[in-house]
């Protein structure tokens, strides 16, 4: 396995004395500790690591830095892991993905020959007809397409972490410009965070031997030593926190940076952000430019320097820029045989650059273009053309070393729109957003000493701005300084190739783009959506500007007119688990929760609340309430306390009915409407004093109701203070014919029918605890709703249960409560009403006091009253078979004319009863209705009869007892 290993180099990250082993598609490989999966496979001579998305073409290492789609594998069940940056671990099982049976031999590569029947956008045009076959197509396509497979049976990773970090200056990118920016900002007194996706700092310097230039701290040192020096300076600085192997995947409004690091999700909030994400070599278009063995020059060097792996034995360097010559010299220095340099320019670069590649056998071709890569599953040669003469060169490695392009996506995410610089022939960052700086290669700066100085200047400027010393923004770098003398514009020609890939993620070729534009998708944004170019897992890193160039060339316009597609987060893939973070879903428990838990009820979630649904059985619980006494925890009701001289009038303004005339000690039903007359919420209002009201709302609506109240109060000048007392009070409803008996055992207050009639309120002690007692009857029986300070809630519950024990007291849950209230036809807002329900049609017309001068929803309610009812909420009993599900349609002549909102089996009445919406003309006693029984019944219906009065105790005598 060591036959592709090079001699040891000082920056090497592998420990050659420690071996680990892993499997790839079942075959065992031995690697060194510190290797990545990609470097270990490359060291063992494996070239094919994945298969392409659409054509199943063989793909191998291209960038070796996690930026392309070509090395995605499944590691221990996790799909889409980049092999080139995934450290090897002993025993790990790596599998190729998107291939059958393996990436080495993939039968699905037959699609590579079917490109004529799978043109761009084929999925919009084919597999549509006949319609009934779509499920079959879908099944097949789902199996053939996609990126990896998620193991849905796998356990979620519960070790995700979230961290919030705040700093004065955040620097993204740990190259020389980023490091020096961080060091300078820290020296100026700023608290700095430095985010870099590599294990060590230094960027491209790390893998280079040529001396660094620019700043005196590193000038003259071999690149890798300069990187080490920068690392030492950063590490020794207490003002800098360095996040290594951390990817800044998004730059959001407010200078928030989303960072993923291992299983941690870090949110960095900075006063100033410096983006120093550098530049990356641009891929080149030619036939089969995706063959394993076509690699970026920096990737070849990375593999050689960091892992001691030789990517090939005979390399051809393809370039259009001096950068390529420098890289070629480094590649040779790393021990790789370069047989040719293919430069699209017509003149030789400077003598010192030429000297760097002056090795025996290396031939230079000027004015040359690549026609194609030769070889089926890996490169075995290259065909070029010079002066219209075609020439083939034997090689197993094609090093793409064209002029690097600024990595500007993060900047673009935060409003720094990219602009095309014709002098540089590149997209560079446009006008900066306040607080966002760019430094170094990302600005389009090429000269290294300027790159370094820009980092220094950005660091200082950011620190000064963050610490409030200046508001002056670091000016964008001037174009003239970016381009060193002698730099020539890049030639860009569209190859006539059949498979020259613009977007390797999505298998989009030059031909596809031409075709899409012919079909009318001639705007870069629509082209993107139609062809999916730039929409793959690398998020356009490899094809963003390339696609713009191809579009411009095909459309016959300038690249600046074409522009770039919108950059959006995430810049780099991030797992959903990391985004979600640890499982932290808030829940709320009432003060009596533990008492319920001891009874082992069936729970239900109501919003964030945990509530007992059922303790024993609906029959038993209903029976206790109807025949003896039951108790239910209603602490989840929302509660507002209103105080102030204007409270009564304010309630009048917010409700269709009146409260200013409510006597102290009395309770009144309330339902609230919005401006459109739609019922928002209901509950009760108790007047506890001249200027004091206690208002209850339904469970889960309190936040909205409180906001509604606060909204209408703001700036009104009313003397009203609203306090949300939901958490302050635990509440129970003690109800049933024997509830008064229980009460008398707990309090010295007079709770008789005379002293405390239906809809009255009383304050006093119950079981020694201060309580507000309301006489209500939601379930239709004599009942006392008691609100006590929640710290005493559990104690009160115990006291009541003890006091009612011999009377047969039973706790009852939501399910029984819903049956009991249905027997009384008491509606539940939000269940029996919806976003179109007004009080008049909901059976609450009695509530609307049209004689009031004004209230919210008055006009809308008046319009409904004048227009007359179209629909009505009514009760019904099922006279046929079954219990229709909530939401079932009420039908006439096969058409839906209404719907069931609630329906339950009543153990008391021994029949199914419900509530629902019917046309207003049907809302008459005994009117027959047909109800569709719902899903799975093949349209079966049952019959029912409208009931306009409560099923149970229609006169209300029991609750007035």
């Amino acid at each position, binding site marked *: 396995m060591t036959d592709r290993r090079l001699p040891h180099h000082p920056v090497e990250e592998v420990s050659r004395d420690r071996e680990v082993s892993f499997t790839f598609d079942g075959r065992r490989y031995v690697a060194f500790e510190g290797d990545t999966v990609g470097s270990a496979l490359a060291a063992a001579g494996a070239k094919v690591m994945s298969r392409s998305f659409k054509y199943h073409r063989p793909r191998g290492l291209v960038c070796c830095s996690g930026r392309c789609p070509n090395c995605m594998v499944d590691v221990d069940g996790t799909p889409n892991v980049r092999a080139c940056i995934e450290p090897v671990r002993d025993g790990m099982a790596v599998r190729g993905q998107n291939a059958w049976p393996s990436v080495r031999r993939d039968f699905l590569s037959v699609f590579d020959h079917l490109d004529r029947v799978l043109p761009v956008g084929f999925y919009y045009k084919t597999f549509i007809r006949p319609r009934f076959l779509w499920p079959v197509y879908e099944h097949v396509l789902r199996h053939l397409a996609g990126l990896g497979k998620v193991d849905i049976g796998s356990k979620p990773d519960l070790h995700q972490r979230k961290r919030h970090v705040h700093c004065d200056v955040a620097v993204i990118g740990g190259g020389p410009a980023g490091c020096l920016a961080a060091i300078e900002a820290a020296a100026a007194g700023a608290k700095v965070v430095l985010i870099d996706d590599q294990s060590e700092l230094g960027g491209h310097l790390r893998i280079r031997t040529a001396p660094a230039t620019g700043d005196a701290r590193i000038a003259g040192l071999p690149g890798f030593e300069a990187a080490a020096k920068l690392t030492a300076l950063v590490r020794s600085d207490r003002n800098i926190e360095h996040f290594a192997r951390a990817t800044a995947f998004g730059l959001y409004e407010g200078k928030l940076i989303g960072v993923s690091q291992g299983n941690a999700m870090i949110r960095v909030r900075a006063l100033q952000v410096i983006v120093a994400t550098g530049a990356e070599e641009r891929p080149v278009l030619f036939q089969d430019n995706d063959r394993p063995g076509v690699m970026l020059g920096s990737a070849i060097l990375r593999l050689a320097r960091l892992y001691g792996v030789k990517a090939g034995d005979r390399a051809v360097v393809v370039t259009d820029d001096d950068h390529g010559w420098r890289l070629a010299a480094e590649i040779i220095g790393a021990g790789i045989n370069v047989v040719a340099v293919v430069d699209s320019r017509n003149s030789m670069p400077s003598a010192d650059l030429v000297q760097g590649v002056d090795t025996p056998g290396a031939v230079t071709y000027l004015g040359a273009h690549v026609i194609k890569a030769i070889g089926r599953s890996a490169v075995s040669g290259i065909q070029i053309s010079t002066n219209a003469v075609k020439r083939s060169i034997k090689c197993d490695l094609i090093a793409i070393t064209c002029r690097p392009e600024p990595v500007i996506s993060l900047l673009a995410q935060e409003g720094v729109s990219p602009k095309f610089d014709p002098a540089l022939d590149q997209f560079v960052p446009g006008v900066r957003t306040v607080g966002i700086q760019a430094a170094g290669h990302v600005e389009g700066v090429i000269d290294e000493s300027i790159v370094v100085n820009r980092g220094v200047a950005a660091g200082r400027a950011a620190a000064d701005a963050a610490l409030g010393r200046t508001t002056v923004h670091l000016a964008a770098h001037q174009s003239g300084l970016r381009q060193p003398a002698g730099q020539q514009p890049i030639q860009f020609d569209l190859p006539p190739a059949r498979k020259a890939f613009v977007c390797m993620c999505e298998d989009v070729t030059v031909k596809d783009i031409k075709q899409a534009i012919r079909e009318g998708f001639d705007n870069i944004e629509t082209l993107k959506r139609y062809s999916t170019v730039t929409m793959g897992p690398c998020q356009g890193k490899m094809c963003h500007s390339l696609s713009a160039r191809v579009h411009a060339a095909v459309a016959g316009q300038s690249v600046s007119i074409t522009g770039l597609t919108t950059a959006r987060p995430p810049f780099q893939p991030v797992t959903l688990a990391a985004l979600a973070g640890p499982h932290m879903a808030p829940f709320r428990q009432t003060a009596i929760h533990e008492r319920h838990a001891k009874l082992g009820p069936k729970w239900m979630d109501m919003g964030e609340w945990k509530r007992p649904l059922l303790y024993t059985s609906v029959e038993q619980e209903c029976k206790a309430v109807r025949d003896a006494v039951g108790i239910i925890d209603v602490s989840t009701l929302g509660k507002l306390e209103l105080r102030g001289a204007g409270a009564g009038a304010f309630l009048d303004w917010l409700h269709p009915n009146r409260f200013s005339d409510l006597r102290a000690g009395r309770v009144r039903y309330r339902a609230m409407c919005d401006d459109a007359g739609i019922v928002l919420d209901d509950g009760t209002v108790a007047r506890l004093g001249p200027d004091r009201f206690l208002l209850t709302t339904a469970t889960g609506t309190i936040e909205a109701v409180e906001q509604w109240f606060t909204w209408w109060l703001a700036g009104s000048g009313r003397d009203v203070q609203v306090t949300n007392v939901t*958490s302050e009070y635990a509440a129970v409803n003690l109800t049933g014919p024997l509830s008064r008996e229980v009460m008398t055992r707990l309090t010295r207050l007079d709770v008789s029918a005379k002293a405390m009639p239906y809809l009255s309120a009383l304050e006093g002690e119950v079981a020694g605890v201060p309580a507000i007692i309301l006489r209500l009857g939601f379930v239709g029986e004599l009942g006392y709703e008691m609100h006590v*300070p929640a*710290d005493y809630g559990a104690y009160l519950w115990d006291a009541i249960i003890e006091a009612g024990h011999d009377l047969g007291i039973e706790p009852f849950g939501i399910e029984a409560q819903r049956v009991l209230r249905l027997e009384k036809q008491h509606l539940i807002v939000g269940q029996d009403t919806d976003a179109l329900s007004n009080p008049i049609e909901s059976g609450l017309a009695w509530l609307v006091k049209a004689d009031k001068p004004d209230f919210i929803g008055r006009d809308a309610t008046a319009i409904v009253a004048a227009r007359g009812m179209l629909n009505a909420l009514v009760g019904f009993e099922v006279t046929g078979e079954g219990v229709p599900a909530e939401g079932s349609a009420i039908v006439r002549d096969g058409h839906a004319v209404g719907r069931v909102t609630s329906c339950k089996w009543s153990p008391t009445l021994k029949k199914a009863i419900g509530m629902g919406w019917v046309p207003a003309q049907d809302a008459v006693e005994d009117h027959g209705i047909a109800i569709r029984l719902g899903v799975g019944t093949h349209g079966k219906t049952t019959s029912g009869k409208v009931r306009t009065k409560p099923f149970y105790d229609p006169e209300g005598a029991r609750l007035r007892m």
Partner: protein
Amino acid sequence: MTTARVNAGNSVRSSPLDALHERLNARWRAPCLRWPIDYGNPVAEAEAARSTAGLIDWGPLNKLVVQGKGTSPALNSAQVQFVIGKATACTVGGAMLDVWSDAPDHSILLSRHGTALPDITGQLVSAVDMSSAFTALRLIGPSVGKIFAELCPIDLGPDVLHDGQIVHGPVANVRVTFARQDLAALPGFTILVPRDYAAYMWNALIHTGDRYGLIPVGNHVLEER
């Protein structure tokens, strides 16, 4: 009317975390005041607060929410001292009060159980007893900053949030009011969380703080100092 067995006067006031403390073998402040004085090892608990972090269910406290435009004049006339934006301590009628004045028209007064809350009256002001509404959780110790960095998006660094300063914001996805309240030289935070979320919040803090050495500690840690 039967009044033979009126059960009154033996009321037990308990923290919303009562069951949780019980499982941790809490020793109670008093049989009728179920807040933990310690969990059986006061020395280890004090040491945790000193060296890593301790989580305290602070109480029982009485709490009064004072709000409305007349808040400041009403507090002044009741001789309650306050600094807007800060949690400060003052003595009113011999009783120690913590005054959380989070806005010009909103303050929360905290007093130890048994200590009377002052009578706050006036124009355009309301004072509502909210003793049960909030649970006061205190985190004390050198590691608390790291725990909050995982749970709260707000910058709580000592150079940003000074001792006593009040903030509203999410902790573990629940909106709470909290203040930096150091204990002697130990950094600390007090969270006022709606009591219904107390069990959730306690678990979220312990779960997150576990790797930083956070353990439950009793109220004695606060009283020792």
